[in-house]
């Protein structure tokens, strides 16, 4: 039986358990004179039955799916005669894939050793046994669980408390999952970076002014040594992000102030969703807009002014990225500005303050945390943005503060380092992890700084 079918059957059983649990609770309640004599509402008895039916079966199912392949592999390999036993990990994998291919019919049986063909037969046999056994065990568990819960329904049973306890555990597991994933990513990046710093000194990476990660793939290949000075990348990232924020923050903030404080409600109901559509445009669309429209335009304008402008410039990428970020700033700021209580506005206006004084002196400080949040979100997006930069700012790692030249960013280099066929233990690919670590540290620092700013300047209203 396929796992999909099994899940469907299980779902049907859970629904049945729910309905029967509810029915049973109503039945129990009837002689007592209505459901108010039950300790919990019938819904909770039903939920409890469903949980008893689902949880043990699902837990067994998950463990089975995780471990059965490993067990089967070990058993198949053990069945091989001693002279065919693989000696190391690589040979083991090769043997396993050979057996697997024979078993699935991709490789004819007479093409391989008889012992291997036998092992393939054993593999098929074991797999079908495992699938059958799994189906039987899971369904029986579900039935037993559901029946147990059904039998235990009584007026005095604290069904609600039990259901809530299970839900609490599920909520907690979800939260733990998110945290564990983050920690896992951080550590994997950290360890790979440490490997990289074993090959390239950390000082070269952090303070080197030259980035050209081409390395010889083979010993006899003619290629440059590879230079891993990340400063041009940091500079390029900062330059483009700065241009983007210079565009996005004022425009976004002012449009938020207009929408929240001055715009008629009709204008607002139309303009706000329209602005938010900007956030939904895929960045690759912005990218070719930047590369095909904005960058040539900037180049032409520059040339007519007698400036030398690269056809891929930091300015083009930054400007378009700024447009992309406007809705992040404006939408979040608008929400927090609107959330400042009316009493604050009334107090200020009642003292004879103009609208603009009210906004500057009362609303803005009160809304500061949210506005900072919006700007921070925009900044992290700017630093992490890849597509626009790939298309509009080029790949050349120039160390320059001139926005009219081509620059490159950390994210773009990660992409170029990791696309195509790569050796995953060369300094070139490991450099991507080091860059990733730098990105992570940068955003973390930004968060800390922003939090500090907010704490210092925030005016907390009740």
């Amino acid at each position: 039986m396929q796992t999909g079918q099994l899940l469907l059957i299980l779902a049907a059983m859970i629904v049945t358990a729910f309905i029967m649990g509810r029915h049973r609770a109503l039945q129990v309640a009837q002689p007592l004179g209505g459901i108010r004599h039950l300790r919990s509402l019938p819904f909770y008895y039903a939920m409890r039955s469903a949980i008893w039916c689902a949880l043990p079966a699902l837990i067994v199912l998950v463990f089975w799916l995780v471990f059965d392949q490993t067990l089967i592999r070990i058993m198949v390999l053990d069945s091989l005669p001693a002279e065919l036993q693989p000696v190391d990990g690589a040979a083991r994998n090769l043997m396993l894939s050979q057996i697997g291919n024979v078993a699935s019919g991709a490789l004819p049986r007479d093409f391989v050793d008889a012992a291997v063909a036998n092992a393939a037969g054993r593999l098929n046999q074991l797999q079908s046994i495992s699938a059958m056994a799994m189906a039987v065990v899971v369904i029986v568990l579900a039935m037993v669980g559901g029946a147990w819960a059904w039998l235990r329904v009584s007026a005095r049973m604290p069904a609600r408390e039990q259901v809530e306890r299970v839900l609490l555990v599920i909520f907690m597991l979800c939260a733990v999952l998110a945290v564990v994933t983050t920690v896992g990513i951080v550590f994997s990046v950290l360890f790979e970076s440490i490997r990289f710093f074993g090959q390239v000194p950390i000082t070269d990476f952090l303070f080197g002014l030259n980035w050209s990660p081409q390395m010889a793939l083979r010993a006899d290949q003619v290629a440059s040594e590879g230079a891993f000075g990340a400063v041009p990348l940091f500079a390029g990232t900062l330059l483009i992000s700065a241009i983007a924020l210079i565009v996005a923050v004022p425009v976004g903030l002012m449009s938020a102030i207009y929408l929240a404080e001055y715009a008629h409600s009709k204008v607002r109901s139309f303009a706000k969703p329209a602005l938010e559509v900007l956030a939904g445009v895929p960045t690759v669309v912005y990218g070719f807009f930047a590369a095909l429209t904005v960058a040539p335009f900037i180049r032409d304008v520059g040339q007519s002014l007698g400036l030398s402008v690269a056809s891929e410039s930091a300015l083009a990428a930054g400007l378009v990225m700024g447009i992309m970020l406007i809705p992040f700033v404006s939408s979040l700021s608008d929400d927090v500005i609107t959330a400042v209580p009316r009493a604050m506005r009334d107090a200020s206006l009642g003292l004879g303050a103009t609208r603009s004084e009210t906004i500057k002196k009362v609303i803005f400080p009160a809304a500061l945390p949210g506005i900072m949040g919006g700007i921070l979100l925009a900044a992290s997006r700017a630093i992490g943005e890849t597509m626009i930069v790939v298309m509009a700012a080029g790949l050349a790692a120039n160390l320059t503060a001139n926005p009219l030249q081509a620059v490159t960013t950390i994210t773009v280099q990660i992409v170029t380092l990791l696309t195509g066929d790569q050796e995953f233990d060369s300094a070139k690919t490991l450099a991507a992890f080091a860059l990733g670590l730098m990105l992570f540290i940068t955003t973390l620092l930004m968060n800390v700084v922003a939090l500090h700013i907010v704490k210092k300047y925030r005016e907390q209203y009740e």
Partner: protein
Amino acid sequence: MDIAEKMNVFQDAVQVDRRVVAQEHMMTEENLYIPEKTVGAPFVDDPKMRMRDVNVFYDTDQAIHGVSLDIGKNEVVALIGPSGCGKSTFLRCMNRMNDTIDICRVEGSLHLENQDIYDPKLDVVELRARVGMVFQKPNPFPKSIYDNVAYGPRIHGLANRKTDLDEIVENSLRKAGLWDEVKDRLDSPGTGLSGGQQQRLCIARTIAVSPEVVLMDEPCSALDPIATAKIEELIRELSESYTIAIVTHSMQQAARVSQRTAYFHLGWLVEMNDTDTVFTKPQHELTESYITGRFG
């Protein structure tokens, strides 16, 4: 037809209209009705604020129906009436706070001395500096106590030097009876004070811009009895230098602090007279019913 005739025709029309509305709102079991004209003495000689035939609409709903009354110099006028009778709306007309509500429309003539409050050429900023307002819920800014009081003087440029500003802040806090309680912690946030202190801070903030009239919209409704007593004491003191209009739900409060009282009902001004007269010899049944607690 000259203007006087036109006015007569218009007023007849308005009165017919009033009768219709009055009958709609007639309280059948009490057989109480709203009078065609405000009873009592709504007008005084040489008033500080003069309101005539004020109508206020929220979209199409009329919240105030042809209210005319005067507020005399340095007197405390109490506006009382059941919830939703329009007393707060009327109060907010007097410094044009209703401007901030898009759907609100005000008709009629409202004057502060000789200044037409609804003159399109009038600077609202200046008006609100002359007619200050204290709100129902204490609403100090989330700034320091000092900055709260200094807010108005700063935006109106009342102080050239820091020492001037310090003086204004101290005087305002003294007048609001808060100085002794907060003089050592002017830098701590105003929101950290107790409810009664916050409301006195709001009063200090209002009088810091030296208004001529102070409007108070149920200033004690969120306060405990002791804080209320302090504010009432303060209102009596302030009436020596300011003209005060106070909306209140508490008839005892109206009786304690005001010289004249206006009774509003469903958007109409039913009766206005000396506070003593209103509370001891009300002329209209509605007023009597309200102050004797039959509804409200």
